[in-house]
């Protein structure tokens, strides 16, 4: 099977994650949209690994997955801390660092 369907699907997923990151007002929802972008990048790396027939891509994808998972966990914890301090998880309400 050729590579382009996987790349197209990963591009679609990445775009969906980007749109979600832009339009979601909830901090947890934004983190979940970021998760979609991580899934897209993982699919992309796996597809190129198969295309080039080299296991190094899989190792890099594994490391990327771990680092991205750590980022998402910290994002969720930040959402919890935010909710405790501001009593809301709405990103539009956060203007303390604006000016």
């Amino acid at each position: 099977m050729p590579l382009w369907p996987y790349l197209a699907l990963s591009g679609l997923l990445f775009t969906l994650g980007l749109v979600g990151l832009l339009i979601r007002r909830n901090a947890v929802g934004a983190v979940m949209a970021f998760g979609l972008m991580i899934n897209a990048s993982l699919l992309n790396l796996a597809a190129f690994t198969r295309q080039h027939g080299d296991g190094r891509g899989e190792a890099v994808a594994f490391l990327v997955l771990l680092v991205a998972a750590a980022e998402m966990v910290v994002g969720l914890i930040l959402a919890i801390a935010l909710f405790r301090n501001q009593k809301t998880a709405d990103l539009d309400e956060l203007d303390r660092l604006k000016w």
Partner: protein
Amino acid sequence: MEIAIFVLLACVCALTGILTVVCRKPMHSSLYLAANSLSVGLLCILLSAPFLALAQIFVCVAGIALLSAVVVVVLNLEDEPRKGTFRTLSGGATGCIVLGALGYFLWHWWGASREPAPDVGTPFGELVFGEFLLPVELTAFLLLVALLGSVLLTRREGEKRTASAGRSGL
């Protein structure tokens, strides 16, 4: 057969991705994200990357998506209010531009389909514990820092005061 499985998984992946973004209930969104991660993991199996698929299912489905669901329950998040028209329009326009650019790049740069190369790589375990040992160790250190940071961020004010008083001997 492979194409049929790919089409099925791709449909599930795209549908759950759309629902993750569109759905207003955060709990439903997290469950759709879990389904999306699961379908990406199955696609990795289709791409002959079983270890990556297993890691994806364990880390993203069992870890991240369920952690998101727990956070939604703990914070008792309400349904997200309807987005403003400008926000929806700007997000949709950005998505169209990015999708168009990616499609153009894929169409013109990649061109006709190329067949995958035969697998000549070294085994995954040898790579991770040989050539990639330093990045793996650095990633482990990063995960430790993330763990400590998460614990520090989630401590309440009272616990911080108790800890600082204990350190100063009061």
